[in-house]
């Protein structure tokens, strides 16, 4: 079922509670009564079309209106991506760390060494993820903003052209690595190889969170690769074509 603007936001949450993490990413707090999506968006100054497309593509894996999403401004897209980054680093990762800590504490002293390895592995993962995010926030996003500005102003300056030559979406595509591999490994280690879990419920809780984070990250990368990249590429092309003319 496609989510539309006249639906009550509360209804939508009942439909799929995973969407809670999306609405919080848009800054929407609970307690919105029976207001429709349209209404809530108006209250929070949220672009309702964009909000709906994100909800729908998150809700339904087969729904991905690539062309339509590309129609939104870089500002909107990047703001959402940034909010997601924040959510991963400051909400999700600390939550998983806490669970892992409890898991490792639940093992008897003499075997704890092995489980500390898991913590260590996750710390390594966290660094990898935050490097990835830092690079996007400090290099890629400022760059795409400058491209969009030049494109919208129909003003292909020397500066923007040289900056495109210096670093373009082609480079980003190449370096944009997959941050899900380690999560995949960790899941398998917990599912298949971790001997004698002291507390199976804790193990399950960690796994549940890992699966969720992985799905979310995949979704996120899809927006970067399939929406942001082609959109900015199109603008880069326009700028380069009109520079010499």
């Amino acid at each position, binding site marked *: 079922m496609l989510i539309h603007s006249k639906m009550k936001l509360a209804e939508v949450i009942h439909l799929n509670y995973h969407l809670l993490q999306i609405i919080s990413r848009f800054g929407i707090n609970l307690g919105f009564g029976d207001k429709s999506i349209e209404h809530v968006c108006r209250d929070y100054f949220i672009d309702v079309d964009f909000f709906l497309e994100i909800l729908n593509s998150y809700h339904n894996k087969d729904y991905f209106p690539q062309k339509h999403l590309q129609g939104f401004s870089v500002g909107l897209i990047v703001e959402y991506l940034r909010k997601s980054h924040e959510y991963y680093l400051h909400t999700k990762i600390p939550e998983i760390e806490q669970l892992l800590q409890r898991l490792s504490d639940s093992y008897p002293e003499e075997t704890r060494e*092995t489980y500390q*390895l898991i913590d260590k592995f996750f710390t390594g993962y966290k660094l990898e993820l935050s490097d990835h995010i830092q690079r996007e926030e400090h290099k890629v996003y400022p760059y795409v903003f400058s491209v969009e500005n030049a494109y919208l102003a129909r003003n292909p300056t020397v500066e923007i052209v040289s900056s495109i030559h210096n670093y373009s979406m082609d480079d980003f595509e190449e370096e944009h690595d997959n941050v899900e*591999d*380690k999560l995949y*490994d960790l899941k398998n280690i917990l599912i298949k190889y971790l*001997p*004698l879990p002291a507390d199976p419920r804790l193990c399950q809780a960690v796994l549940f969170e890992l699966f969720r984070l992985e799905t979310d990250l995949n979704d996120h990368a899809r927006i970067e690769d399939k929406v942001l990249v082609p959109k900015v590429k199109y603008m880069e092309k326009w700028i380069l074509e009109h520079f010499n003319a």
Partner: protein
Amino acid sequence: MESIHVIIADLSQLTRTGVSAILRQFGYPTSCREIMHPDRLTDYVFKNHNTLLIISNSFISKCSSDQLRNLTARTRYLFKILIRDSGTLLLPIHTFNEIIEPEDNDKIIFRKLEKQLQGLLKPFTAGIVQEEISDREKEVLRLVAMGFTNKEIAEKLFISAHTVITHRKNITSKLGIKTIAGLTVYAVIHKLISPDIVN
């Protein structure tokens, strides 16, 4: 499959040889070590997980009080079998998972050992259908986990870099682990490398 360390601690060469001979009849992946001095206990018994310690009464009487305390500690990774020979027993009897009596014949001894080996293997085999990695793959995995590059591994094992890559692909698809960090965790859990190497 997880391998089991068996330590035979007995003062008599005859007993040690006899017990190892019986153990060889099992198809389990065991590595067997014979020790004749209590000091060696610390080297082998308390470090390895998943250990079956077969120890005699007369051996225990040569242990220091520290060693005795270590022996009494109950962990699920150390199974202890007492060979009851001469002298008074310095440890409570419930310290041991099994006792081999002087009058036990070879069939009984075999059964007692088998029961303990199965107990140790159980947590690792129950419910796990795992594609076995070969010994060669294990060796490659060990070196990968220790941080060696494909080229270095190739040189160490006298194989081509291409073969190393093939091994690595097979390891990843069999284990479902893609990253080096993940393989390292696997290697430590399965005692292919010691945790110290990682630290």
